[in-house]
């Protein structure tokens, strides 16, 4: 095996993975809006139609429910659909197929039909998109049994996790942070790279407090943790990578070690996945805590317009302030 790596943006890593997986597995069909001739509105599917042809790379009508619903049928036919919802906010238009059909297909047919389906969708704020393009809906999907939810924070993980997602026999929602598409660049293995689903990554060790996050917020959490080093605060950063399956063991281990935790999410506070993490900490290691677990979230309002979004999305200042408060409070 070659150990060669290349510096890629997250977008390039996703594109490369789609190329290599489609080469490896002839059953894979990519479908979605503008994924063919245009190569995707962000170019995530660039070059696929030229290499694999119109039968395997399909521009669909503007029909999110039919994209998700026909993916069920493609899977029933023994193919491996990798569907794109152009922006996660528009998955509401496919919700009845994703929640009511895809997620339950294996269960309701007792595995007669196998939903090997990946749905990719960009999401998240910070790039001044129009309404509904920025919403972080992961907690809504996490409450639907039967869906795996994968949210990479690095280009290398995007490759390793997308590879696992496509190969997983169960449906996976693969959520790609808009800000990370070009804003995140790191060293990505050139050869096949597989990161198993459900294994969190302790990207920075620390002893005093752990910042737990996923997707683009990991990048911000890491910067905060690094800046705190100079102030004598040893902050760990745990990247969950996937929220379903959830790596309970990794959370328990690092929270027990540090005794303090801050959970960072971009989604609204109420009913967000951060609440689930805090409930998990209560179940697993409450007595190791030296301070209440804090959370940093978006606000309980619809994702705001461009001139307000920088106030909405958690930033380094808000994360830092939550960490310091946690340190001071116990």
């Amino acid at each position, binding site marked *: 095996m070659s150990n060669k790596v290349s510096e890629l943006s997250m977008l390039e890593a996703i594109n490369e993975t789609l190329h290599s997986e489609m080469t490896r597995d002839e059953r894979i069909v990519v479908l979605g809006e503008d994924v063919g001739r245009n190569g995707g509105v962000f170019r995530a599917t660039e070059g696929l139609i030229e290499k694999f042809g119109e039968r395997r790379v399909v521009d669909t009508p503007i029909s999110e429910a039919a994209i998700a*619903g026909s993916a069920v049928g493609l899977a029933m036919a023994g193919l491996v659909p990798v569907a794109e919802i152009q922006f996660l906010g528009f998955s509401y238009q496919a919700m009845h*197929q994703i929640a009511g*059909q895809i997620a339950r297909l*294996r269960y309701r047919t007792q595995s007669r039909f196998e939903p090997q389906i990946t749905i990719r969708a960009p999401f998240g704020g910070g790039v001044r998109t129009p309404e509904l393009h920025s919403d972080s809906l992961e907690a809504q999907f996490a409450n639907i049994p039967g869906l795996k939810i994968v949210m990479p924070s690095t280009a290398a993980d995007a490759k390793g996790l997308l590879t696992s997602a496509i190969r997983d026999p169960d449906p996976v929602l693969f959520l790609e942070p808009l800000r990370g598409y070009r804003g995140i660049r790191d060293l990505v293995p050139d050869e096949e790279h597989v990161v198993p689903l459900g294994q969190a990554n302790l990207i920075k060790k620390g002893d005093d407090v752990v910042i737990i996050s996923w997707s683009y917020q990991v990048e911000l959490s890491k910067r905060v943790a690094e800046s705190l080093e100079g102030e004598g605060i040893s902050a760990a950063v745990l990247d969950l990578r996937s929220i379903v399956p959830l790596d309970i063991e990794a959370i328990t281990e690092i929270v027990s070690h540090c005794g303090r935790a801050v959970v960072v999410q971009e989604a609204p506070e109420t009913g967000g996945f951060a609440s689930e993490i805090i409930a998990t900490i209560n179940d697993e290691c409450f007595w190791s805590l030296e301070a209440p677990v804090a959370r940093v979230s978006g606000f309980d309002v619809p994702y705001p317009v461009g001139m307000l979004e920088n106030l909405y999305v958690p930033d380094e200042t808000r994360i830092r302030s939550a960490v310091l408060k946690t340190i001071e409070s116990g």
Partner: protein
Amino acid sequence: MPKPNDKQLQMILEDMVIARTQAGRLWNLQRQGQVGTIAPIDGHEAAIVGAVHALETESDWVLPQYREPLGLRRYGTEVLDTFMLYNLGHPAGGHIPEPIKVAPSQISLGASIPHAVGLAWGMSLKDEPGVVLVFFGDGASSEGDFYEAGNLAGVLKAPVILFCINNQWAISTPTHLQTAADSFSSKAEAFGIPGVTVDGNDPAAVYEAVFNARKRAASGKGPTLIEATVYRLGAHTTADDPTRYVPSDDLSAAQEKDPVHTLIQELKTRGLWSDAKQNEVETAALERLDEAFERAKNTPLEPNSMMDHCFVSETPRQLRQRSSLMDSVGNTNE
């Protein structure tokens, strides 16, 4: 012309009589509290059975809504066995065994239409023979899934037959409150595909329509929307009281056109059916249903099967829930 021959008509009638007879027994079982909610088939037999007899069971898929299973006998006896498990509320009721090309009942109205389009599309990508027929009702045609999937099917020329059984009622809502269109089949125009309306009480007419749609689909020319007009002779389900809203004159007029009685008369006149045959078929149908019911009741059920078949690999949390479920079951047993 693709008319069913006499032998086929006899087989169609046999399946229609079996469906009607077994539906009656199921209704009684529900009233005795032995099975869950049932959607009676009465009035839909010719449309369902006529359609299924025009398919190639080896290669063609059927995706039902929920009223059809008793009419799918041609696909194998396992369909009934599985349906009885389903009616009992056993999880195995969702697993019609391989290689039978029938999906389990779909409770979400119209939700199987995009599945059918995707399945047909997938089969054509794999150069497999065969087509997909998806059943849905007049009410389901108002769902977005119908429009999105019909449109996609047209664009892809998917080998699919969209089979709308217009039984005049969506529970209590009559068709004129469902659509202002002249017919349900006219909606095909928006998909750029043929739309056909057929008398759903006439199994030969249904057979012919499906035969033609199948031929068209299998030869790569794309989908067809078929509207089979019937009248729902029974309740929507065992939980429904149609006397609240079905005009009795309309129902009486529809009973005059009862598809089972009509075909019995026709075939008797032509010497292709008899009272003796009728008795024989009905008796066997009831025995078969009772046998399937007994088998279903005797199918083992482990409490922790509730946790099976969500994911191939359970999440750590599911594993814990499974274990706590087993603890609580153990405590209950004590």
